[in-house]
């Protein structure tokens, strides 16, 4: 546990100080500010436009951080041989994987929370509305991105960093369509198609069981118990990915 925490703290410090992260966050903030201009173009839907566009910016730039940093996390350690230093000390492979994930998750939390807070302040300044439910939507976005990070980390234990990042994006995209795939199985007649749809539905994380934007107040947002259930499902998915990553990594030689 001590070792996992030590690696997590180290990963957080390393990733949060990386200049690339600062550049990505600056772009995201610029996009959120750009939502003001979009809001001025829409008639009567200004606040909604600003909110939705801002959330898309949080999600998109969070995804960039999730896949590219998570894809590189393990590879960088192996390439630069820092992994030799860690494993020459009493550090297990599982502790390494969990520590890396938790450190990156902390960084992601800071990034997503920062962007969400910025959006909240912008909306408050422009529309004089304190949209508290935006915090819930931002937290749900963070959980979604944490799943993508875990999946990318899993892929990175046996593929290249670039391929792991690409696969991470694919899983994110497939996760948005997961419910549609299940619906497809209901309308089709082919048993093979139905079976295949179920396999895809079970393998790919369902990232849209709750519409994040729909979780906002005043729009018939999801009930707390539904949000809790979905979050528990995604956390279980993360644990499975990390256990898989640790099992693959345990067999690795350097």
């Amino acid at each position, binding site marked *: 546990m*001590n*070792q996992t*925490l*030590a*690696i997590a*703290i*180290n990963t957080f*410090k*390393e990733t949060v*100080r*990386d200049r690339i992260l600062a550049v990505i966050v600056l772009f995201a903030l610029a996009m959120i500010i750009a939502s003001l201009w979009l809001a001025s173009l829409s008639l009567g839907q200004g606040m909604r436009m600003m909110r939705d566009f801002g959330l898309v910016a949080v999600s998109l730039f969070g995804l960039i951080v999730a896949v590219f940093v998570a894809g590189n996390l393990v590879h960088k350690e192996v390439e*630069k*041989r*820092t992994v*030799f*230093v*860690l*494993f*020459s*000390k*009493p*550090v297990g492979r599982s502790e390494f994987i969990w520590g890396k994930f938790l450190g990156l998750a902390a960084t992601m939390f800071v990034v997503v929370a920062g962007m969400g807070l910025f959006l909240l302040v912008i909306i408050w300044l422009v529309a004089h509305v304190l949209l508290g439910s935006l915090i819930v939507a931002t937290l749900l976005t963070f959980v979604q991105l944490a799943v993508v990070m875990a999946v990318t980390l899993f892929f990175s234990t046996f593929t290249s960093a670039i391929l792991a990042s690409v696969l991470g994006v694919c899983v994110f995209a497939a996760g948005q369509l997961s419910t549609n795939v299940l619906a497809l199985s209901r309308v089709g007649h082919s048993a093979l198609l139905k079976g295949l749809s179920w396999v895809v539905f079970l393998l790919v994380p369902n990232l849209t069981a709750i519409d994040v934007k729909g979780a906002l107040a005043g729009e018939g947002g999801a009930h707390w118990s539904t949000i809790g259930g979905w979050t528990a499902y995604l956390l279980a998915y993360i644990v499975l990915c990390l256990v898989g990553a640790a099992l693959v990594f345990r067999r690795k*030689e*350097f």
Partner: protein
Amino acid sequence: MSVLSAEIDLPHLAAPPVLALEGVRKTVTVGFRRRRVEILKGVSLTVREGEVVGLLGPNGAGKTTTLKLVLGLMKPSAGSLSLALPRQALGYLPENPYFYDYLTGHEFLELCGRLFGMPREERQEKIAGLLRQVDLEQAARTQLRKYSKGMLQRIGIAQALVNDPAFVLLDEPMTGLDPVGRVEVKRIIESLRDAGKTILFNSHILADVAELCTHIAIMRGGVVVYEGSVEEALVGGAGDLEAFFMEVMRR
């Protein structure tokens, strides 16, 4: 040399072995077709307590692989490897160390201390002492990406010593350093030797090996072809370790 053998002047062989490799083989698969390549072809080597052993040999002889096996970064394909010490008692400096860019020297040593589960106070005390020992007190709060190669090598040695190890493994500790850096690293290894640490280090610089080591092992083509004391090797090479090394390579 162990305390016991030093006091009653026993021959050095009396010291217990810290590391013993017997017929160790290592095969790896390389390339798309997963071609099998045997890197180590039966390495036998013994390192005893208090010895400073220089592991010599040309590039590709299997020196780094041998160290990786000792550290558990790789598993032997065949043969036996016995290490008399737990991992907590090992210290390791990799070749051309490259650590975390955005951590400061102090933070990096903090990380290493935490990995050994050292309590905060003990950790801080140890880190301060190590920074003094490797002469990096002034650069303790500087990020590692701003360190020179010599400074990285010294912080690398400091991280290898954070747990006060009984057995230190150094992979090419002097390679690529300027003369000043080499002298500084040599001074640190000398102080470790004088403190009675067991040391195994890979090197291509025979003058340093002759100066620092009590024993040498020469590897060629994945096997140890010579193992003995530096004195014996110097006698064999008429006072010149390089001549002896070349002679062993030609055999």
